[in-house]
């Protein structure tokens, strides 16, 4: 069980929860998220993602990573949790989502 920025991944049952809510993902979407979560907020390049979430026969010029990441973003919902680092790759946005969640939950916890 891995947790980061409100995301909870169960690698054995291949299930993902965001803030306690179940999110249904496809196989590739889960694989990509698993790699990003394992990097713990670090940047993962598209090439790395392709190598680790797809097989070695994948076409290096494929759009698969871009398409899967954009579908994954949509499935995980707002606020966006996967950030694009221009020219480098993708990472889980731990800071922003953590601070936003703190702001959102703060009034509720005080009341």
């Amino acid at each position, binding site marked *: 069980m891995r947790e980061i920025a409100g995301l909870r991944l169960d690698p054995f049952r291949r299930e993902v929860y965001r803030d306690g809510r179940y999110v*249904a993902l*496809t196989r590739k979407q889960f694989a990509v998220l698993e790699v990003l979560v394992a990097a713990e907020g670090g940047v993962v390049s598209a090439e790395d993602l392709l190598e680790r979430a797809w097989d070695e026969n994948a076409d290096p010029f494929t*759009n698969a990573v871009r398409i*899967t990441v954009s579908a994954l973003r949509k499935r995980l919902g707002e606020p966006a949790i996967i950030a694009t680092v221009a020219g480098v790759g993708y990472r889980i946005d731990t800071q922003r989502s953590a601070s936003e969640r703190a702001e959102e939950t703060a009034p509720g916890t005080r009341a």
Partner: protein
Amino acid sequence: MDRQPGVSVRLKLTLSYAGFVMLAGALLLTAVSVFLLRGTPNGIFVPNLSNLSNLLLAFDPTNFGPAIFGPVAAAMLAFLLVFGLLGGWILAGRMLAPLTRITDATRMATNGSLSHRIRLPGRSDEFRELSDAFDTMLAQLETHVAEQQRFAANASHELRTPLAITKTLLDVVRTDPNLDTGDLVDRLHAVNTRAIDLTEALLLLSRADQRSFDRECVDLSLLAEEATETLLPLAEKRGVSIETSGDMASTIGSHALLLQVTTNLVHNAIVHNLPDQGTVWVTTSVRPRTAVLTVENTGEKLTREVVSTLAEPFRRGRERIRADPAGVGLGLAIVTSITQAHEGTLTLAPRAARGLCVTVQFPAAPPHTGR
């Protein structure tokens, strides 16, 4: 079913006709006797049958009066009995005649002759309705059986092809032992894969037709993304781009079978597309009672006539092309059968600007059944 022999309907009807005629006649005569012959001696009601000439008096028109009532009544009742039995027998026979034709047709259908029709002439009545319903049933059975036979013939033909190719390849290697076996193994492998694909497609078809599968809540938009993931390498190889969009659309059904539907549709949309720069749009949406999956693609201009034949088994695009490596030709047939098994509808329509638009509608899952 074996049954005990019984009284025929014709005889039963005849007896009941005769019975009613007798009853009516007796009642009428009783009424006459009660209201007209009151006060006359009771002896007249008992005709003296010991003397036949006494009875014959009844047929002499010059005789009349209470004295003659007894013999006349007996003669009338005897006549009514004969009339009722005879008339009843003829009438019942006429009424029941269509039943014999229907029974004959049923016997012929049982023996395998489904082309026979009863076609009862005349205006509508209960028997005509029965015979028309029977004719409709026979016609449907006939088309269904013909369809099955054609399918079986096509399926065996398609299955024979890879086996025949395998045999040829093996013959070649037997006559020429110096042949490059690597190439041969590759070709055998390809042919064998094709045979397996075809067999699996046939199995899938029968499984969907029997409706033996587990049902769960399935989100069509997730299936669309999964199918896109699987087929993206093929699409990129053919220079086709896939755009997936739409809302979550849940239905109840088999995840594996519905994924097969989506994959087959997207696969067809990629394969039957423009040679270059083609596009496939996969969209999901929810209407009040239905979950809708739409797969559109660019491609050749299609007429309605061509589109209406696309779902037939073993048809690939315009013709049944043997050399086309696109698939086994069961894709849309499988989609049709799985869709029907899920109480859904499949609509194929040519797009205004070239290409095809395939819409599958499933009953929407009731809310709160998903996780």
